[in-house]
């Protein structure tokens, strides 16, 4: 019964003409019901993606989704191996000036603390990658002359570009640089949430027109066979091929036109890295985008827009926590070092005994809190628990404070074990947080929030 009352409370807020954000935050903090895609809708609101005025949703969503897909066209389709850019993306290229204008304003509103690293941000970066043809230009020059005449460089310089060109404006150089980033993303998205099969499954909403990004970084070993059978025996003896093991079978290639969910994440992270060169891609971003995408892609409605909407939710969430990912900001006010120091001082205020136990044993906050805080606890708990915890984190007006309170609560809840454990068992305990009811952690954090100054 209480559950139905709760559902009704959510619905009355969500169905209002104008959403009452602070009421919604309050409700969501205590957990969002799994039913009816409410969580996907609430997260879109809590991350300030959807405007509070319902009447502008349709138009707004249509614009944002179109904008995302034009990034895909520019960065993945145009910047990829594909020599025949589709006509639809050409139409978007023609309308680029206005797109850039929109982008600059939106990037301004997204970045709360205007970070000098990203000031040459989205708009500028797109300018430098103006042509959709950042690759095999000589191929393109045959198939798609119109885009060449549109591009900023002269056709002469385009034709002289080649894979061994070392000049910094060579499009090949940037192609290879991109592939380094892509290689890292590829490794990480493939091993995301290995305990559940969701990300390995095929998405019902693929972007079938895009080249498969992972193939850009997959190494195909050269196969060789001996020329003469008679010679082969002596070669194989030399190489000791008798002891060779056959390589593990490669994963089944998906049929053309289909993609797995992890491939969608790969595209999202690659586009994010390209649009935010100051951050690029840092390991752990995959863990942050994972739950966002999962919630949107498994919702009963709008799952076909999960990709585009995840991009904007991720961009918004990263605006809050991206400083934790920038190494040069580690010791700054908003960086990870400072956040960990604040955590330890919270712990000292709340529980001096546990705090001094950790200090005496030489257990530094970096050993556990680095991952807890920078990944918003996403590696500490199973995905459903992470999602529940994020209901509270996303609903908090001050997310850093929320993270600190949750982390303090997590330590305090283990104080008995920590006070009796030695160095090794305590580090292991904090690095492999025992299965627990995340509700208890959240309640403890609420209790702490009344008395702790973070």
């Amino acid at each position, binding site marked *: 019964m209480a559950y139905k009352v709760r559902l009704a409370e959510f619905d009355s807020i969500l169905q209002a003409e104008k959403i009452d954000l602070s009421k919604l935050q309050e409700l969501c903090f205590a957990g969002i019901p799994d039913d009816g895609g409410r969580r996907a809708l609430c997260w879109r609101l809590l991350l300030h993606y959807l405007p509070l005025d319902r009447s502008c949703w349709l138009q707004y969503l249509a614009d944002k989704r179109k904008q995302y897909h034009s990034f895909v066209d520019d960065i993945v389709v145009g910047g990829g191996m594909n020599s025949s850019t589709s006509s639809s993306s050409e139409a978007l290229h023609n309308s680029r000036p206005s797109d850039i204008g929109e982008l600059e304003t939106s990037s301004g509103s997204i970045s709360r603390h205007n970070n000098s690293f990203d000031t040459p941000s989205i708009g500028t970066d797109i300018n430098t990658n103006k042509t959709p043809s950042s690759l095999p230009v000589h191929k393109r020059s045959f198939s798609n002359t119109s885009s060449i005449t549109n591009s900023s460089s002269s056709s002469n310089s385009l034709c002289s570009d080649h894979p061994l060109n070392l000049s910094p404006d060579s499009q090949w150089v940037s192609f290879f640089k991109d592939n380094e980033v892509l290689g890292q993303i590829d490794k990480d998205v493939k*091993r995301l949430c290995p*305990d559940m099969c969701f990300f390995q499954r095929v998405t019902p909403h693929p972007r079938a027109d895009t080249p498969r990004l992972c193939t850009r970084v997959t190494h195909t070993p050269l196969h060789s066979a001996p020329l003469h059978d008679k010679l082969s025996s002596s070669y194989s003896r030399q190489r000791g091929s008798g002891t060779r093991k056959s390589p593990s079978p490669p994963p089944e290639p998906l049929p053309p036109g289909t993609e797995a969910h992890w491939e969608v994440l790969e595209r999202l992270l690659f586009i994010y890295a390209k649009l935010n060169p100051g951050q690029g891609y840092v*390991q752990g971003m995959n863990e942050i985008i994972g739950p966002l995408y999962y919630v949107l892609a498994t919702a009963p409605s709008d799952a076909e827009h999960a990709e585009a909407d995840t991009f904007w939710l991720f961009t918004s969430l990263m605006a809050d926590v991206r400083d934790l990912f920038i*190494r040069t900001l580690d010791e700054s006010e908003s960086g990870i070092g400072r956040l960990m120091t604040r955590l330890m001082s919270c712990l000292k205020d709340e529980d001096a005994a546990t705090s001094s136990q950790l200090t005496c044993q030489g257990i530094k906050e970096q050993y556990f809190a680095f991952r807890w805080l920078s990944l918003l606890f996403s590696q500490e708990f199973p995905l459903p628990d992470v999602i529940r915890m994020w209901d509270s984190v996303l609903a908090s007006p001050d997310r850093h404070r929320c993270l600190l309170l949750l982390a303090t609560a997590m330590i305090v809840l283990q104080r008995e074990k920590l006070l009796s454990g030695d160095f090794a068992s305590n580090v292991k305990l904090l*690095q492999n947080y025992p299965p627990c009811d995340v509700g208890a952690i959240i309640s403890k954090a609420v209790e702490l929030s009344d008395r702790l100054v973070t």
Partner: protein
Amino acid sequence: MITSAHEQLRHDHDYLVKFLALGNSGVGKTSLLYQFTEGCFNSQFTSTVGIDFKEKRLVHRCSVTGREQGVHLQLWDTAGQEKFRSLTTAFYRNTMGFILVFDLTNEQSFLDIRSWMEQLRTHAYCESPDIILVGNKVDLTEQHVVSEARARDAAFKLGVPYMEASAATGFNVTACVLALVDAVLLRMNRVVDDTRLTLGKTVSPDDEVTSVCVC
């Protein structure tokens, strides 16, 4: 660390030995350490963010003296990506042995060994700490891009021992770690012996150390 060797004695006179695994992202550091501590292969690891801790106790027989000693091995696993360097270099100073890993099927991870060595020599407790270079994924023969001869040559130039291993099959994993344990213990014993010689028998503070032998 080494100079205070007898301070390291814990739990029934075990030596406490700290190792750090280094190398590019995706070369298999976590899998190697897991194979060593748990004795099996787990292909389902997410990327390491920050630093992870594992431990294992063992009795090691010294290759030179034949002396057996209890060893409490602490293994620290690091994140490979650049962003985490400042976090992980802080650990170098307290580390006695380094397991430097590259992926035999990944050229770049091999090329970057040089820069890992530089990092290591800058931040470690001394100029020439004990290191073992490990070429992982030796079982994926068909995909190798770094030949054994080339890796040996590089290791020789760097002045470090080289071994090939497979976290997947378990081949040579224990051997790699034990080779490093052996090198570290030899060094520790040498320091302890030197200390005893300098101090002379009258002030010998290390009766404990001599009783490390748990035969």
